[in-house]
């Protein structure tokens, strides 16, 4: 099994599964928006694109949806990369 890391460290096109989310580090409304997007343990994620300035924000595929979130929020999402 590969090392757990945070979503913002994951390379573009590398798939992973969400291991844990540090909900407490997110504000109430940010946390519930992430939940609405389907962020949850066991869900497949994959970073697809990076913002052109400072590689922020990130476009991430979560489940069947693509969402944009800032790097700071991606840091709260712990993932386990899938073996390539």
């Amino acid at each position: 099994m590969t090392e757990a890391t945070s979503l913002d460290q994951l390379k573009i096109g590398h798939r992973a599964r969400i291991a844990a989310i540090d909900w407490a580090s997110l504000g109430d409304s940010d946390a519930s928006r992430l939940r609405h997007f389907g962020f949850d343990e066991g869900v497949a994620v994959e970073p697809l694109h990076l913002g052109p300035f400072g590689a922020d924000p990130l476009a991430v595929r979560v489940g069947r949806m693509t969402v944009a979130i800032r790097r700071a929020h991606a840091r709260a999402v712990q993932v386990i990369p899938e073996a390539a």
Partner: protein
Amino acid sequence: MSLPPLIAVVGNPNAGKSALFNALTGARQKVGNYPGVTVERHVGKMALPSGRAIELIDLPGAYGLDPTSPDEAVTRDVLLGKQQGERLPDALLVVVDASNLDNHLRFTLQLIELGLPMVVALNMVDLATRDGLELDAAKLEADLGVPVIETVAVRKRGIDALLGQLDKMLLAPRELRPGAGPSHDGFTLQRRARDIALGAIVRETPTRRLTHRLDGLLLHPVAGPLILAAILFVMFQAVFAWSAPPADALEGVTIATGNAIGNALAPGLFRSLIIDGVFAGVGAVIVFLPQIMILFLFILVLESTGYMVRAAFIMDRLMSHAGLSGRAFIPLLSSFACAVPGIMATRTIDDPKDRLTTILVAPLMTCSARLPVYTLIIGAFIPARSVLPGVGVQGLVMFGLYIAGVVGALVVALVLRRTVVKGGGGAFMMELPKYQMPRLTDIVLGLWQRAMIFLKRAGGIILVTTIILWAFASFPQAGPGQKQSDVSIAGHIADGIHVVVAPIGFNKDISLALLPAMAAREVAVAAIATVYSIDAGDETNLQPLEQKLAGRWSLATALAFLAWFVFAPQCISTIAVTRRETNGWKWPIFMVSYLFVLAYIAAGATYWTAVAFGLG
């Protein structure tokens, strides 16, 4: 007579809800506002196949019944029967995106728990097929326990089946399903939604999706910003170039109509009211209409294709330095044309505090109405010399004025985010929806609605204010040997203004021009011209205004006047639309006050610096 049954169209953002609503109601819809909030209320009437009349409301897109934005709060309140000005819907038409079921079914499950009769439109099945996804609608229907109908709203597919189902539902004696209430927490629902979605999938062929390929180009670190810049360049060209002929034509028609009516009326106060008050006022408003329509044409197309969100994605990082989010980019950019459509475009910003900050700084973007003023003063006072081949001093000053506005806006945004509009924000979370071809009828409907909102709401206030301004300028009437501008209320107000603005180098003429400049900034030029035509004899009337100015104003005064215009005179349209969009007088008053203070300081600093350098 009892009201027709109310059907609420409800679903996640990007589920194709509004396209379905438009397909059902067409042009028979009305746009209003929910009381107390700037959330649009779309309502339409239609007849079912049985002939039964129904009323449809298009509720704002939401991810669930636990709101994170004012829009979502309205959706929840309507569904719970708690929204002021709206009755509890009799049935729900739930729209879900066929290729995003795992996410959208979560909200559907919450809606099922409400216990209202409902039908699910499994929308955009064509796009799901394009992405290699094959679904079993019957299995989904069995698992959810409510009727499911496959639809492609943009091609009107499945609409008849949907209407038939609504008929059946409304005919049946209202079956009271147990309204269990929101008994499950979000995660349980989310997992159940994923299970049901998985169960409904017959086959899934992995395909490299079109959207992903397009994003590879449009969100490319180098190509992405360049493409965005190119699109914006075209948009700007269009707003400035395409709008001039229709704007001139509209102005011509207004003036011609005004004159025709004026000629039919006896000279006197009433005629003056109609011509100088009503027609001047209405004219000042409708000349903005072509710009607004062209700008919104671009915005609607960019929005409905899914590109707008990508533009926000690209700009988010840069905007975050000013405490704003990527969402603020397009509204601020639009404000270079005119702050009115710019402020109207802030409706796309979810976060209320981000939105308010964007509204408050939008007037600092140099709008096109300031151009005539800049052109006049620069032409009169700045020498037409070149510093470098192709780079003139006049152009540099003009550029500097634009930059001053942008820098001012960024600094003000930063300060506001730390003081009066503190909290919230700091987030940029958006769905990047699939790219789609925009549909002509949706665009036309959207444009029509924007135009109506602008004409009705802003127009009403502007009309009233221009009439007041006219009254100030016309009363009391000048006796023989007196100048109207001296004896009128406006003249006395100008005297009062002069006391305040004299320290920053403004003369009485400028004080007089500041008042009508409130109606529309470019009027300042006309006002100054009028003052000098009256004062000067006939022989000097032929002299161009620039030369007259150059003889009467010091350079320090001229520069101070330019600095003033970078920040201040709010036109009444902007104040009116700000009141409209912030739902009250508090923020427009704040905006006008802070801009006035900034303008005063900027003009004062410019004047005293210039005087110190011997330019007074």
